[in-house]
């Protein structure tokens, strides 16, 4: 019994024939398999071979006169061999050209080690396990902040490995270099607040209070939050990428084995830099936001000095303090999310990318959650 693939003129296109005798199936390849017409895929070859004998034990591969091949042909035979292997069928390649046999042999010698698969837990347990992992991640995050605080105390007592030079370097990276983008965003946010406010307040003829709205809005809410979002994208991501690359390069291993603490040597300067710089950036953002608001308002019957005068009255020390407390909390969250996901990163360049993404996403989620929490707290405290 013989079966032949789509008949092509002899000597031209790729072709094959299959023939069974006993528990051996002979697959003979012929024609030119190197052209643009790729010929039969490995599934087709496999099905053809399987269709021949009910329980084959051996597949014999052979090449006809004038058979031409390239690595696409090899790829198909490789997959064919694996399909056979999975079914316990032995593959005999003695009939193939020498070069093909060598390459197939090489490809076969290096199959990745199997990962032992653990038994799948039932669906409900899986859902539970996933939530437990989330919970663990939050605990890890809190533990990381705790470690950071311990490192900070050691630094304060002068017993730590932290290099002051690093601290200054990161302050420079985080602060002065972020002024441009913080200014741009803040001025726009100030303008947006002023527009929104003046449209609403005009209905009551209370346009002058637009200054209160912009001032309180910037100082208590938008200044800290927008600055934090900018730094999460700018600095938090950079921290994750730096530490992730160090992980890939085995630098973190080197830090540990040299007896240095990655927490003190790598994380603390970054964390401290952000915590020191962030309140200053927030104050800067508040001021620029106010100027933005004043610019808009002065185009709408409230002049510049009137606006600033009104704003000064509206903002109390309490408002400024709440904003600054927020900025410190946000800085801690951003630095922790960045450093932690960098340190947990895998050792490839793709893993570094993942770590960076995770740093930014986590930071923003934590920021918004913390902002909501703090606002509720402030409300209860009456500040």
């Amino acid at each position, binding site marked *: 019994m013989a079966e032949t693939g789509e008949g092509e003129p002899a000597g031209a296109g790729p072709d094959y024939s299959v023939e069974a005798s006993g528990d051996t199936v002979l697959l003979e390849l012929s024609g030119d398999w190197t052209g643009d017409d790729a010929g039969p895929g490995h599934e087709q070859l496999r099905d053809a071979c399987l269709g021949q004998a009910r329980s084959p034990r051996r597949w014999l591969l052979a090449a006809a006169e004038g058979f031409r091949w390239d690595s696409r042909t090899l790829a198909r035979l490789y997959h064919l061999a694996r399909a056979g292997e999975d079914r316990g069928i032995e593959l005999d390649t003695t009939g193939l050209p020498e070069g093909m046999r060598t390459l197939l042999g090489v490809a076969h010698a290096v199959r990745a080690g199997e990962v032992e698969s653990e038994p799948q837990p039932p669906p409900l347990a899986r859902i539970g396990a996933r939530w437990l992992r989330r919970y663990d991640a939050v605990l890890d995050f809190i533990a990381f902040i705790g470690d950071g605080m311990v490192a900070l105390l050691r630094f304060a007592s002068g017993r730590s490995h932290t290099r002051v030079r690093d601290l200054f370097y990161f302050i420079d990276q985080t602060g002065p270099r972020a002024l441009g983008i913080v200014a741009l965003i803040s001025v726009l946010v100030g303008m947006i607040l002023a527009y929104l406010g003046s449209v609403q307040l005009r209905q009551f003829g209370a346009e002058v209070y637009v200054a209160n709205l912009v001032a309180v809005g910037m100082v208590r809410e938008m200044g800290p939050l927008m600055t934090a979002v900018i730094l999460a994208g700018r600095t938090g991501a950079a921290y994750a990428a730096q530490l992730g690359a160090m992980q890939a390069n085995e630098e973190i*291993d*080197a830090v540990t084995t*040299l*007896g240095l603490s990655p927490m003190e040597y790598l994380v603390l300067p970054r964390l401290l830099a952000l915590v020191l710089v962030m309140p200053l950036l927030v104050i800067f953002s508040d001021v620029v936001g106010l100027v933005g608001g004043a610019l808009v308002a002065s185009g709408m019957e409230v002049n510049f000095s009137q606006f600033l005068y009104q704003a000064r009255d509206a903002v109390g020390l309490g408002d400024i303090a709440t904003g600054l407390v927020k900025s410190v909390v946000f800085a801690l969250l951003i630095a922790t999310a960045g450093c932690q996901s960098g340190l947990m990163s895998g050792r490839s360049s793709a893993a570094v990318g993942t770590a960076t993404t995770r740093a930014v996403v986590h930071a923003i989620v934590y920021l918004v959650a913390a902002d909501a929490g703090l606002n509720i707290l402030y409300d209860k405290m009456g500040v």
Partner: protein
Amino acid sequence: MPDADTHIEVRDLTLRYGSLLVQRDLNFTIRRGDVFVIMGGSGCGKSTLLKHMIGLEVPAEGEILIDGQDFFKARPREQKAMRRGWGISFQRGGLFSDLTLAENVAVPLHQYTDMPAGEMRDLIDFKLALVGLDGFGDYYPGEISGGMQKRAALARAIALDPELLFFDEPSAGLDPLSSQRLDELIVEIRDSMGGTVVIVTHELASIFSIATNAVFLDTGSKTQLDCGDPRHMLHHSDHELVRRFLSRGEYDSRDREGGS
């Protein structure tokens, strides 16, 4: 109790990454003064074994005793003391990329000594010269070749004259002559410090010229096939794979009968 000669003892060790089994049932002893080679095919778990020995990964099962002490059962102070005596060069070097070579070598010196600055500079220059990097102190790791990075990592590893040296493929990326110089250097360091050296390497030349003891890890069975003197293993190992590895595949079973 291990005798005084034993420096490192590996007992029933199993190495895993999560659910991936890397190696199991490892048992071997490294004597004081050995140049011990960990060999085996690519991806068999040599670097993993090394990382377990230096306390970066926790063994899934079994234990590693260094001077009779298990790193993971030691108190932090003892761990620090243990690490003080180790010099490590990683497969990818592990040099700090934001520090110059000289600053890299200075890190362990700062960490463990109170050397005056001038003396430290002299020592750093000397260590860099030892590995053939005289005058490269102000270069950053990104500005030198891969082989040079390897040597710089070596200079950092030997900064504190460690009594236990771990090298992951120290000669990868080196030309044969530099590689031979490195081998000589390793032996000299060991002789002068009276220490022990653990090396991961594929270089047969190095294995035969400096190794006093070795273990062979197998990818297929995921365990050690043989351990002992590689020169002895070359002809007398019970495993054909080990004999073929050590003879670059030129050995076959007939040679064994002829050779013995």
